[in-house]
């Protein structure tokens, strides 16, 4: 059962991931569970400087909690997520840039902690595949349609004879009445 669920999640993720629609499962969950947002960030973690805190929140949303894996550390209640949130705030207080904080975490946990995979050689397929597939599909459709149109154009039918035209006119006139 778990395997099937995992396969479904995997195929869903593969289909949507590249297009950046990773929020869909979250949206679905919120349909099923109509509850208010449960804040994972504890009051004692919040920085006194609102600008710095806002940056910390944005960074936290991009970092994966490695325990629950499909939650960001901003959403997760896991102890490791809390530790990483505190770490992110400590790095910001120490004067790191946003990119610097992300680099600090990826140096320890790898690109896997980034919920938005970076664009580089190893992730090329992930990012390019959806557009490549769209392009191939579009080209195939265009080719197919063009071929069909030219096929109908080629099928030259003989013009109507005098007799046929008269009958057709009669039929059309009868229709008007």
């Amino acid at each position, binding site marked *: 059962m778990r395997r099937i669920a*995992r396969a479904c999640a*995997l195929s869903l993720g593969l289909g949507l991931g590249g297009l950046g629609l990773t929020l869909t499962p979250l949206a679905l969950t919120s349909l099923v569970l109509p509850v208010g947002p449960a804040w994972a960030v504890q009051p004692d973690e919040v920085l006194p400087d609102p600008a710095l805190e806002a940056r910390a929140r944005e960074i936290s949303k991009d970092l994966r909690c*490695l*325990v629950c894996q499909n939650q960001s550390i901003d959403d997760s209640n896991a102890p490791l997520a809390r*530790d990483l949130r505190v*770490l992110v705030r400590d790095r910001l207080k120490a004067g790191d840039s946003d990119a610097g904080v992300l680099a600090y975490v990826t*140096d320890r*946990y*790898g690109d896997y902690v980034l919920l938005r995979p970076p664009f580089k050689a190893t992730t090329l397929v992930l990012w390019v595949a959806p557009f490549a597939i769209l392009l191939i599909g579009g080209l195939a459709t265009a080719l197919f349609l063009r071929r069909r149109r030219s096929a109908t154009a080629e099928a030259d039918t003989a013009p109507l004879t005098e007799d046929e035209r008269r009958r057709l006119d009669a039929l059309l006139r009868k229709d008007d009445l």
Partner: protein
Amino acid sequence: MRRVLYLLPFLLFVGVGVAFYLGFERDPRDIPSVLIDKPVPSFSLPPLPGRTDGLSSTGLTGDVTLVNVFASWCIPCKAEHPVITRLAREQGVTVRAINHKDKAEDALAWLTRNGDPYASIGADLDGRVSIDWGVYGVPESFLIDRQGRIRFKHVGPLTPQVVEEQILPLVKRLRQG
């Protein structure tokens, strides 16, 4: 040519199917460490109270060492403890430990109850050093070569199978090198 084109969707389907099937064999919890083949992070941890030796990066050179991250509150740690004890006492591998986010008295009581095979233990009360090691779930074990580089990481409890098939052969190779 045409026939091959008609086969293409089927072949694609088979390819995706094979990829997903292989995905079943992978443990989603097993995230490859970025620290493999890199020197251990620079750190210095104090000993547990009443003990003399803590753990620091400088103390991890010279001999092949297994660094085990454990906590008294961690149930799988207890499960792997006999395996680690055997590794240290019978199989002759130096085992040192990082005591992860534990209470000192709990850790000491746990070691009295379950035995202490560790050559030294560093107390990581806030878990910050564990983050430097990329730890995301205790227990974790790292194998360090004589130059102080991380050569192998295992997430989850060590089993006799992992020891026999992966750790002991690697220890033998690293001792020669």
